[in-house]
């Protein structure tokens, strides 16, 4: 698996400290860092954040910080806000947050920054009110690569559809924008419909069923959300559809193992959420210790993950999304 053993992370930490020292300052220990995923109890975020999986909290632990994970019970700004506020009240030094909304959290996050709290977003950005965004994969890259993946599976021809999360989901809407752009390169592929499964298995299943009926000639489905793709895969997992309708999107390997094995899904992609969290945790500690100054072009080494450069929009990119298929899926366990 990809889980990092504690010994390696300790080594990584010490290397990081020396690296940081080289770039101008050292990482303080004992910082209070609060990790705030979109919602508590979601397996994707649990992987991204937890010590066991080597996520954000693992990075913070290895650096000697006090990290904690908390969030609301619904992935909405009104449920996330009180958590952010209480983190501010509790005197956090840094927040690592996946924003439930690009703008709604801004007044509060700005307030946090005004108090000198470092705000690092990960997974989902709030561009105007954070210090640094740790980007899992560039928005354009996810959009284009998913279209390309699907094109390969359907010979660049046929009707396709998208099963998204909620109609207002930030990431998904941005990716879909790039998908549409990328589709102009494939004149024989037609996007016939975008439906919303609201990240609820039952709704996602129902809307996907509707798609299959409404467009009998459908050749492919892209679902850039783990709940949507799982529902679609379960539906397509019948002899009637298997191999006839291609499915790709974003999913965790564990969710897709069965479908890749039986041929319902050929390939899909995702970044490693644990690495995403790890990088975000690391970057937050660096920033909060003023070990780095957040100037574009500056580089730092994030422990086991290696060297990263701060881009001009104050973001760092985890890397290209990883494509999972039959050949590699069994190497992963998350």
């Amino acid at each position: 698996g990809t889980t990092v053993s504690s010994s390696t992370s300790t080594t990584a930490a010490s290397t990081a400290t020396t690296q940081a020292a080289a770039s101008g300052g050292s990482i303080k220990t004992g910082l209070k860092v609060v990790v705030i995923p979109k919602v508590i109890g979601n397996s994707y975020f649990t992987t991204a954040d937890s010590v066991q999986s080597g996520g954000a909290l693992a990075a913070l632990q290895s650096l000697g910080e006090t990290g904690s994970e908390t969030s609301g019970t619904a992935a909405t700004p009104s449920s996330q806000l009180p958590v952010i506020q209480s983190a501010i009240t509790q005197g956090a030094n840094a927040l690592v947050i996946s924003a439930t909304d690009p703008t709604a959290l801004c007044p509060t996050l700005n307030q946090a920054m005004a108090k000198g709290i470092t705000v690092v977003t990960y997974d989902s950005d709030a561009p105007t009110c954070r210090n640094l965004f740790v980007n899992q994969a560039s928005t354009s890259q996810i959009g284009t690569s998913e279209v390309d993946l699907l094109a390969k599976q359907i010979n660049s021809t046929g009707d396709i559809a998208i099963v998204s999360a909620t109609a207002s989901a930030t990431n998904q809407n941005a990716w879909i924008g790039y998908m549409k752009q990328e589709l102009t390169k494939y004149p024989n592929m037609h996007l016939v419909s975008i439906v919303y499964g609201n990240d609820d298995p039952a709704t996602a299943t129902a809307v996907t069923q509707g798609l299959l009926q409404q467009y009998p000639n459908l050749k492919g489905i892209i679902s850039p959300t783990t709940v949507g793709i799982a529902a679609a895969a379960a539906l397509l997992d019948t002899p009637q559809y298997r191999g006839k309708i291609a499915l790709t999107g974003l999913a965790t390997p564990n969710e897709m193992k069965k479908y890749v094995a039986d041929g319902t899904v050929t390939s899909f992609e995702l970044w490693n959420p644990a690495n995403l969290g790890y990088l975000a945790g690391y970057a937050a500690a660096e920033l909060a210790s003023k070990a780095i100054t957040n100037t574009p072009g500056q580089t730092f080494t994030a422990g086991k993950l290696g060297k990263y450069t701060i881009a001009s929009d104050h973001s760092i990119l985890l890397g290209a999304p990883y494509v999972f298929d039959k050949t590699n899926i069994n190497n992963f366990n998350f």
Partner: protein
Amino acid sequence: MLQAETIELKDDIDSNRGAKGSFDVRSLVRWESGLGIVLIASLIIGTVASPQFLTSANFFNIGLSVGDIAIMALPLTLIVISGEIDLSVASILGLSSSLLGFLWIHGWPIQLIIPVVLIDGAILGFINGFLVTKLGLPSLAVTIGTLTLYRGIALILLGSNIVSNFPASYTTIGVNPIPGTPLPWSVGIFLILALIFGVVAHFTPLGRSIFAIGSNSEAAAYSGIKVKQIKMRLYILSGVVCSLAGILFTFRLATAEYDNATGLELNAVSIVLLAGVSIFGGRGTIIGVVLAAATVGAIGNALLLANFPQQAMGLINGGLLLISVFVPNARELFGRLRGHYARRRLVGLRRG
């Protein structure tokens, strides 16, 4: 004990109602002071859990987290006292928020949008009221229907749009307290509304009529109280107040989305029930609602500061709700269970 017991069903129901529904000043006092004790207890727990709890910044946080729900709970309280229910409150909030965003991106000025949104709230409330009073449909079923309908209209209005470029002068209500106080704007408005609602409910003919309708709507009608008209007005009022909450919610989050406040109707209902308002109508106080809102906010915040797992918040909310209805009935429950067994032993004559 057995001798004194009668088993007339009517009696049972009456005495049961008496326990829950009678206007007994002493029991009310006991209820509210009980809530007060819970509130004080949660304040103490909060203070122990975190030194930041008793800071004005934290009071602001507490207020912000319950402000809009508490505002929705006020008209809902009157509706429940009148013997009905409104589950569409959060959907009215969401639709008002969406309309606000929709009109804003279509270039309307905020000064014009606000009255339009409030009128829209009145219309949504009117629809509920029409279905309940004019068509005589059960309010529980009707407002489950409008809960879906209003949210659906919000989705039609805004679709996947997120509107967030509201002027900063409005959106500061989400971060800045009312000048000179630690209170967020929503709490300030809640307290003013609570005062008005409290006076209306407890010191005016209208208020007395609402209680009478909830206790016995037939007797109220026989006393010349315009039962349907009052219920209709309560629903319209609820619509207006919820759309006001929608405006506050939108500016607080600086965001209008179709799914704003989804699911908050249950939070509003549980504040109302926790306040000691009888689900059968006819009993409840506004001061209870204020205390219940404060308790819910304080407990939530204290648990947050104590790093209590947020996953378990549902347990706390549900548990509070259950305790609030169970405690007044506990004596009866045990009495009944005991009676049940006693009766078993004392079986009368059976025909062979």
